[in-house]
């Protein structure tokens, strides 16, 4: 049966920040060499969202990532989450050092090679996570949407697809600083690009959907042993990217300098103050004002 819906997920390989796995250098920077790499947590949630499309609408799922050869780990893990039908790795020295705009170009070219983009189609839905846990810019998703010409919908906490009208209905969680949180219900014709909110939870509300979920999960596990063979690796030439638009040459921005931020976080040594001594309280008040004079570092 021909699927009526094609979806893709773009994912990222990221350091594993859990204790016992992460390693830091003497200066407090991440020791990437000693730290394991895994499928980024936001990417994993995006895969769950794509999986919902498979369970509910029988969609074909493709997963793509731009990265070094060992990014196949991320693809293998993604496979387990969403029982992907296609796995792509875009890997080439020419892509290295790319900022988000140059990355978006590579991803655009990669998505164009997926099944859902063949015969003049546009990939119906592309999913990405909200941001990466190391880079954290949150830019790659929206910029890839621009390159694809897809409508961008961010902070999506729930969605469904009207297969007749070929329209996505999404619920977005928008935080308005200093005001309230809003859940916005928005409708957009396909193709769309959905950046999944970190609080997204795929929900399946009938017994039959739950059983379908299990079935595909098992299918995915069955493919786990041979997943690496399933991965198609593309270099720059195979993707047909313009070298001026990808990698460092295609990056408008560069990292110029990295330096230590003055304040650091760690366990603390408490200074004990007698709360009944007014003079000491005055000092506490002064300290509070001093602290609040500094900058917020998040």
């Amino acid at each position: 049966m021909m699927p009526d819906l094609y979806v893709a997920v773009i994912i990222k390989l990221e350091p594993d920040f859990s204790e016992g796995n992460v390693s830091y250098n003497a200066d407090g920077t991440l020791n990437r060499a000693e730290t394991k790499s895994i499928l980024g947590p936001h990417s994993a949630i995006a895969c769950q969202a794509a999986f919902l499309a498979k369970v509910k609408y029988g969609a074909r799922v493709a997963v793509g990532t731009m990265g070094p050869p060992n990014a196949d780990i991320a693809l293998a893990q993604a496979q387990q989450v969403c029982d992907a039908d296609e796995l792509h790795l875009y890997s080439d020295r020419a892509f290295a050092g790319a900022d988000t705009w140059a990355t978006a170009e590579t991803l655009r070219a990669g998505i164009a090679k997926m099944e859902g983009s063949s015969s003049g189609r546009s990939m119906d839905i592309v999913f990405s996570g909200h941001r990466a846990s190391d880079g954290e810019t949150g830019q790659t998703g929206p910029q890839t949407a621009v390159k694809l010409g897809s409508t961008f919908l961010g902070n999506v906490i729930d969605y469904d697809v009207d297969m007749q009208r070929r329209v996505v209905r999404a619920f977005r969680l928008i935080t308005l600083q200093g005001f309230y949180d809003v859940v916005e219900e928005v409708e957009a014709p396909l193709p769309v690009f959905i950046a999944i909110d970190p609080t997204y939870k795929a929900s399946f509300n009938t017994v039959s959907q739950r059983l379908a979920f299990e079935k595909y999960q098992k299918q995915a596990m069955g493919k786990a042993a041979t997943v690496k063979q399933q991965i198609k690796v593309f270099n720059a030439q195979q993707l047909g990217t313009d070298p001026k638009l990808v990698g460092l040459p295609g990056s408008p921005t560069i990292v110029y300098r990295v330096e230590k931020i003055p304040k650091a976080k760690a366990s603390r040594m408490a200074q004990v103050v007698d709360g009944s001594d007014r003079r000491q309280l005055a000092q506490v008040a002064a300290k509070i004002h001093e602290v609040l004079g500094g900058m917020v570092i998040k």
Partner: protein
Amino acid sequence: MTERYDVAIVGGGSAGLAALKRLADLGKQAVLIEAGRQAGTKNVSGGILYSKKPKNGRTYNVEDVYSNFLSEAPYERKITKYILHAVSKDKDFAIDLTAAHEYQANFGYSVLLSRLNSWFAGQAGEAAERQGGGIVSGVHVRSVSWNDGGRAVIESDELEHFEVKAVIAADGVNSEIAEMTGARPKFAPEQLYQGVKVVVKMPEEIVEERFGIGTGEGAAHLFAGDVTLGHIGGGFLYTNRDTLSVGAVYHYDSLLDKPAAPGALVNALLENPLVSEFVRDEVAVKEEIDRNLPKEEQLRTKFAVSKLVKTWNDLRDAYHSPSARRKLIEGGKFKSEDEIKSRIEYVKGELVSKYSTKFVTDYVELEYSTKLVPDGKRGAMRKPYHKNVLFVGDAAGRGIFIGPRIEGLNVGIDDAVRAADSIAKAIDRNDFSSMGESYSQQVEASPYTRDMHEIDKDYLKVFLDAAKAVPKDIVGQRYGMIFRLMSSSTLRGLAVGLANMLGYDKLLPLVESEETYVQVPIEIAERLGKAVTTSYKPTIPTLAQRVAKLKYDDDRQSHIKVTKPEAEFMKKMVTLCPTNCYLLEDGKVVLQHEACIECGTCAKETEWRHPRGEKGVAIQYG
């Protein structure tokens, strides 16, 4: 459009899963609904799983349901030694009860339910899928009602409702289905035991060396005497592959009489010299980080030490496990066992010299848990069904407690098969009107049910033979006569017959008493026992530390409602709740549900429900 299925099984414990597998093998469509994130996350067992071959009648054993059980299931060790210890302070008198353990048994394997049930779920789920059914987890059934057609309507917190022709209630000792259908009242304290346990870490070959067993073999040690802190019941220690299950089970009414915190009860066991010697191992103790160092340095050190300690532990565990050792060498990481050993020594050396880490004798706790267990002798449902809902295992109150004999898993599986068979027949005939009664008779015919109502004189003989070394005078006035009777083979038959006529329940108070479980063993230990020397004092975690290790997915709304905040029972819950969820404030009992491990200790006088789907505690070992 209401979805319809043939059978719903509520509860993914070993009984529910066995029912699912059996129904699938009979070609029937069934859906199993489990509230936990996956099957196994809400199960706790002592535990040993038995397979029996009774002289009269037959039981449906786990290997009858899963033909590949012996070859593929992740059971722990085959128990080949079963020893009862009478203990008092540092004195221990051991009685070899292996014969009692092997009585009419094919085998008894120590198990950790979380991983075992996970395996059952894999097997049963796959079989069920082929029949158009399967397992749905993370769903909490909220109500069972009936429509005009006689179908049961299942409502849950997470899914749209659906209809089924028959239901198997396998939702455990705190069965909500039993309560919401009115099939039986909540169990009374005298019908229950409270079991508490900790899982202790111990590398595989050290287990074997410590307990004098071979590869794949296991030992079970039971404890009676002063460790019970005056309660009726006893302690246990079972060897798993690379862990130990150490715990205790006590009459719930005995605990209500003399409230003691479950943590204190398991601690009394751990502090017993014999037990502490059993559980000891080598442990790395991290040094406090120098606060005068710059903060980045402190953090870097913290992570470095963490990583090294993890490496030392992982390598050591692997080194002491033949299969893990082999894997390391085959995988090319190490060339020989000696190389692994020297690496372990090297890492240890690094930790000591660079970070002043200490290596001491102590024990390592992995998980603390509690569960209520129904006593089939007093609480088994006589007619375990209600309309087209069949009750199995703990939900039907069918646990077996006879002296040192504690069985529940195998009973649940046996019930499950009988229930599945009854349902299959009803589906074939398309007539469910006599299904419940037919199931009830099936259960009545089970040898397990017989054991709940009568004494088996041959079992008694085995037990008495084992206890031959115990001087008669210790046994005291109360049993003097009975003991003399039972010891004589001629008179035993008569005596047992008489006893069975008089009724199990009249004899029970005699046998299950403080005297039997506490005073007699203490006297035996003090008179005949050997002194045990201990090399260290175990560092026992605080309750806060134990709770911190447990994994929770907090449900914002509380699943338990305190309806009688000033009741005496509730005040006792302040002590008896294993995770301190209750506090007494201004004479009223207040609940903080976040650390709840859903044991049911407080269920009797509260509005007690399981948390919603996926919420609540997730047991890692069980």
